[in-house]
């Protein structure tokens, strides 16, 4: 399997007469884009805004982030989701770098939504504040969930995916400025030199805790809740096989953008053939019943062992209950003789005093920690808000609240906010970007 990602380094995004890419500038015909989005009748109201790094803009509620891409070899960017099913991870996919499409609610946020500040103190909490964000702000006819805290956000998320393809398509005939190649031989057909290197599998635990379909991360369009751990090629993760869900408290979330760029994977690819033999990805999930967690751990450990993995990198898209899956897999892997490194965030409470993971085990002796879900953050008002600021306080976002005896509401009269890191959009960057860690005080 050989994947080529053709990169176009975007310097600016503007609205104009024709949707095109030229000399680093993406021009979008706004009306055409809106019409395209409105092809889905469930979208009742839509607008598009551009937010650039450094601008005094706050965006909330953000439900999803997607890198605009184009599958040059043919087919949709997200098979089984926005188009027909097909094998991904092969051929050429173009990517507009330095930019992302955000799915933003016009009103009515939900538990797993998040916030992004494009400048000031709050910018450092998210990766997306560094990108030029094309914000799709929409309202839908999904009345059944309008006032629910848990939302599938189906229409808005699919609209954002389609919009990202629409924009990405402008590169279809163009020659990329650079090409990243991702290629690995089939496992048993590798050279003796590569085989002699210590082997590694990446074990990913995407969010799949909702038992009703429509909220969880999808694997080629299949709900990850209905999955047993399986073996995937890293190219598949990088090339649109996985999309993010609509449930996970936001700082722990792996947005679709995160999946498309997964640093833990690309970093191991860099080491492949040099210091390690990268075998591939064991895609597991996160479950809510003990037996399910145990079963998943069983599968993960067996696969790792049968593949002959010397070591594993284990990452969980979540905190709290998912910690149990994380530790269960960690221990199962170690017991199978697979040396494991974990990558996760912690939840130590606002005072930092709580146990970092809900379960602990001495065998989990190697963990990279990417942040604290509970950290209290206070930020000044922002000149412009894309979306609706009140959603942070009103709609049950994991890191916001309507009223608190001591702290007051998350959104104050003057537009300043107080919230938990929990709702910073994909803030803990567990996928690998995080330059945060946790320290003892």
């Amino acid at each position, binding site marked *: 399997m050989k994947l080529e990602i053709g990169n176009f380094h975007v310097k600016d995004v503007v609205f104009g007469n024709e949707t095109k890419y030229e000399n680093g500038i993406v021009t979008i015909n706004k009306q055409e884009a809106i019409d395209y989005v409105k092809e889905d009748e469930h979208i009742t109201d839509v607008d598009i805004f551009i937010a650039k790094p450094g601008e005094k803009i706050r965006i909330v509620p953000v439900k999803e982030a997607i890198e605009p891409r184009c599958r040059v070899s043919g087919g949709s960017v997200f098979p089984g989701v926005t188009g027909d099913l097909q094998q991904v991870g092969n051929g050429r996919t173009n990517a507009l770098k330095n930019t992302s499409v955000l799915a933003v609610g016009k009103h009515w946020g939900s538990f797993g939504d998040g916030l992004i500040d494009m400048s000031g103190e709050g910018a*450092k909490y998210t990766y997306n504040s560094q990108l030029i964000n094309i914000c799709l702000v929409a309202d839908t006819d999904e009345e059944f969930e309008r006032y629910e805290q848990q939302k599938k956000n189906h229409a808005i998320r699919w609209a954002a995916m389609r919009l990202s393809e629409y924009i990405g398509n402008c590169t279809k005939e163009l020659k990329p400025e650079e090409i990243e190649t991702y290629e690995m031989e089939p496992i048993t057909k590798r050279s003796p030199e590569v085989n002699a290197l*210590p082997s*590694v599998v990446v074990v990913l635990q995407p969010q799949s805790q909702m038992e009703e379909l429509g909220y969880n991360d999808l694997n080629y369009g299949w709900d990850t809740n209905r999955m047993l751990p399986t073996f995937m090629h890293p190219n598949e993760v990088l090339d649109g096989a996985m999309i993010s869900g609509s449930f996970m408290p936001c700082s722990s979330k792996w947005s679709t953008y995160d999946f498309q760029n997964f*640093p*833990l994977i*690309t*970093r*191991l690819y860099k*080491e492949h053939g040099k*210091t*390690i033999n990268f075998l591939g990805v064991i895609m597991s999930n996160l479950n809510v019943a003990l037996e399910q967690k145990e079963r998943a751990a069983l599968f993960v450990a067996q696969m790792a062992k049968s593949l002959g993995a*010397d*070591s594993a*990198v284990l990452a969980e898209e979540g905190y709290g209950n998912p910690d149990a899956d994380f530790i269960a897999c960690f221990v199962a892997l170690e017991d199978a003789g697979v*040396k494991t*490194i*974990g*990558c*996760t965030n*912690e939840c*130590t409470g606002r*005072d*930092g*005093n709580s*146990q*970092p*993971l809900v379960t*602990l*085990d*001495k065998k*989990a*002796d*190697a*963990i*990279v*920690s*990417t*942040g*604290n879900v509970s*950290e209290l953050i206070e930020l000044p008002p922002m000149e412009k808000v894309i979306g609706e600021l009140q959603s942070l306080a009103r709609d049950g976002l994991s890191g916001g609240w309507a009223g608190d005896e001591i702290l007051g509401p998350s959104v104050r009269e003057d537009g300043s906010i107080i919230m938990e*890191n929990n709702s910073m959009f994909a803030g803990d*960057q*567990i996928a*690998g*970007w*995080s*330059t*945060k*860690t*946790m*320290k*003892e*005080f």
Partner: protein
Amino acid sequence: MKKAILYINQFFAGLGGEAKADYAPEIKNGLVGPAMELDKILQNAEVTHTVICGDNFMGSNTEKAVERILEFLEDKEFDIFFAGPAFQAGRYGSACGNICKAVKEKFGVPVVTAMHEENPGVDMFKKDIVIFKSGKSAASMRKDLNKMAQFGDKVLAGEKLGTAEEEGYFIRGIRHQVWLEDEVPASDRVVDMLLKKIRGEEFISELPIPELDRVPIAEKIEELSKATIALVTSGGIVPVENPDRIQSASATRWGRYNIKGMDRLESGVYKTIHAGYDPAAADADPNVCLPLDAMRAYENEGKIGKLHDYFYTTVGTGTTQAEAARMANEMVEYFKNEGVDAIVLTST
């Protein structure tokens, strides 16, 4: 000039050792004992009062002692509260922890203390207060006061505080997120740790799993009336001539002594050599520490099958966890070989 108050025990107040351990709490105007040195070193505050309390008084009447001391403090102006250093003294460490925690809760001022890492007070209170790592004995007094004072100065000046590691106090289990100065992303840290772990090299996990050292609960005794029970004590009860030369503190030796046929331990035949508490009562009646008489009574009644022919003894004060563990393991050999079913352990 900001104000500080120091809490010390009877020994460091120069009042005496074990004999004065029941000293009731009092607050003195001015500097007593280590308060003098602390006052000299502290730059951003002056020590105005010294609180003194006997370790036993605090240990046996903690609530009352704390209440009294808090009362003393009510009408005093102070911006920071220090206690100790307690070095390896368990009761002193516990006292410092108790009073610091209470002062912090009631008055909301920063509290600072110091003790050696093996002091049980560390595990008991590290989550509640800042405890600096001290030396084993008063030999490191000046160094430890320095640590406490320097930190106190920082806090009083409102300076930004570093991590527990940077400042030098025991990890409290309080974890917060920080941005790394060198901005190394998680993916790089993972690969770095991965390669080290694969190669068997040393690495440091960013999430140390805390030591939850729970001993698995031993099975209950099914038939007490058939069981052989042994008495063990860390109170240092020994035959008066201390034949095994068990140390009075920081013990590395233990003894086992034959009590076959004895109904009680007689004063003058047995005594205590434990330096950490007032020996008077135990010398006068060793049974208050090692209750041979009660055990023999139960044996006679048939409540227990048999009282083991030997009692086992060592001294608990200052004894390191490592040494205690070793001694215990040696005792276990005897227990197993001689059919001991269960133990009643008395500590002081």
